[in-house]
């Protein structure tokens, strides 16, 4: 049976066609995904990386809700210009508690992976509420509602932390029990700032390079 007559069989048989497409299209994915999903080093946190606290996690989920990642990446590439502009390049181990990853694909605004600690909380507050009050040229939207809404109402924090624990994030019973109290009295903007201030700070360059 030559190639063409084999193909005639496939093109006259619905089941064979479906089966053929399934097998042929699956190969590339299997070769790439199976090793990556089984590579333990990609799940190994860098020495200072820890799960997000109740406040930071709430802030991160607000970052997702507002779609910040469509304009801000969180991924510093190992290029001279990027390291100079943003700080040490990103390591896989810094993202092991990121579900989903937040690397982004577009930098309309600057990368935020190492934004933590670069500006004061007050700067961030002003900037989120009225970006052009701080950076005249900014084209970022203003987020006035973040200063009004209660952080405790931005999702069920206990359910979220329980869920993440089931996925392997090492939260203790105490941390989960205290989560609601941690959010008390905070506005959404406070949690978002806590998240931004954490970004990229749990990385110790000396320690990483000495390894």
């Amino acid at each position, binding site marked *: 049976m030559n190639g063409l007559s084999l193909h005639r069989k496939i093109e006259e048989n619905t089941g064979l066609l479906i089966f053929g497409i399934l097998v042929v*299209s699956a190969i590339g994915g299997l070769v790439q995904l199976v090793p990556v999903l089984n590579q333990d080093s*990609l799940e190994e946190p860098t020495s200072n990386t820890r799960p997000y606290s109740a406040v930071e996690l709430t802030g991160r989920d607000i970052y997702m809700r507002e*779609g910040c990642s469509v304009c801000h990446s969180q991924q510093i590439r190992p290029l001279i210009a990027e390291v100079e502009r943003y700080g040490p390049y990103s*390591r896989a181990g810094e993202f092991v508690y990121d579900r989903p990853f937040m690397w982004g694909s577009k930098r309309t605004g600057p990368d935020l992976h190492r934004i933590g600690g670069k500006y004061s909380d007050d700067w961030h507050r002003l900037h989120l509420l009225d970006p052009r009050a701080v950076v005249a040229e900014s*084209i970022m939207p*203003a987020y006035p509602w973040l200063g009004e809404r209660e952080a405790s109402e931005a999702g069920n924090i206990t359910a979220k932390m329980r869920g*993440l624990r089931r996925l392997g994030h090492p939260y203790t019973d105490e941390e989960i029990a205290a989560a609601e109290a941690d959010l008390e009295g905070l506005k959404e903007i406070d949690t978002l700032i806590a998240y931004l201030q954490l970004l990229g700070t749990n990385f110790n360059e000396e320690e990483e390079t000495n390894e």
Partner: protein
Amino acid sequence: MTMTENTIYQDRVTLRLIQFAVVWAVVAMTAGVYLAAELIWPTIDFGQFWLSFGRLRPLHTNGIVFGFGVSALMATAFYSVQRTSHVTLFSPRLAWFCCYAWQLTVLLGGLSLLAGWNTTKEYAELEWPFDIAIAVVWICFAVVFFGTIATRKIRPIYISNWFYGALIIVIAMLHIVNNLALPVSLNKSYSLYAGAQDAVVQWWYGHNAVGFLLTGGFLGMVYYFLPKHAGRPIWSYRLSVVAFWAFVYSYIWAGPHHLHYNSIPEWVQSLGMVMSIVLLAPSWATLINGVMTVSTAWEKLRTDPALKFIVLSLAFYGLATFEGPMMAIRSVNVVSHFTDWTIGHVHSGALGWNAMITYGTFYFMVPRLVGRELYSTRLANIHFWMALAGTMLYIIAMWAAGVSQGLLWLSVDQLGELSFDFKDIMSSMTPYYLLRLVAGLVFLGGTVLMAYNLFMTMKGREPVAVTPPPVAPAFGVAS
């Protein structure tokens, strides 16, 4: 259901899907134009959360891909699978369910994005309840489509149906694997994958949503509507066989080129880059097949707006499938990644290829479906030039913006210090963004013209009853 409805082609559902697709095109492109304006005048969201860039942008992309794109794919698949199988749709009721359930999913999903239900995985932003709804409708789509093929009256399965078939199967696989997540409430779930692993899974999905939905599915349109409209058989059957399997095999590897120099293993990046370049061969095999098919029917281009759209879409298909592999080369990607070049690339595909070929098939199908000449050929010709001008202007603006962004970001002086401030580079984008806004408005204007033209053509008409023609004994199914 009467006997006659069982023996004629089910075209009412096709017509309805075309109407929905046109509505989605106008809605989602309007959102796109508004987003373009927000990048110039950031205060025009008026402090309203639902107009905020970060929430409106996923509505724009999802509205185009899932609202406009999938509705158009379902419409053309239902239209062509019946005519290439010489049989009426398998389970018309299920086809109607697909039509309305899909519109409802996209509508509610779009509203949920404005409400901030957002997983942030690109082109998979919808939260888990919608992911389940999409999977259910998709399986029904598969049953209708493959059911029709399985009950066909003609022995070979025509080539366009392989591409639609690949669309249905591979998108189901990608959608399910990428969206695996643990729900913690109705509007919130956490991905089963984290960090670098999640990134690799997401771009395996993201790139192949482009591959099998925006490329594979729309190639189904090429293989049916181009030969049909040119009145010529496909130039090389053998080439289409080779191109199909090479396409299905090689596309799926290319995802990691979205993650060059990111925190993923280098071998994955390199493999993704090499396979992206390999992909040029099957992509252009179809391009050559399409152009050669039409090459003895050029004179039709002078008079027929539908064929113009289809042929021009092939040119942009060729451009985008060349540009893609080039941008997947790591040393080019260093410049293009994270810039507006990516946005330009996406739109040369989405406007020049996907929208144009869809418009061509709509101008082809609607007059035939309702048994009446197109309301205005002149308007359709104006639309053609607006679509072409809008697309070119858009791409050129974003190329210029993207290349300068990329180079300026990377630029360091003799002492190794950064040459430019980020915000100065950002401010220098305004002229390009203005140009892009104009381009978007021109393209949207053309689409509105088409909506009017098609509406006037359909107005007051029902689909004509078409009976499947008899099959020549040599090609018939033994029954």
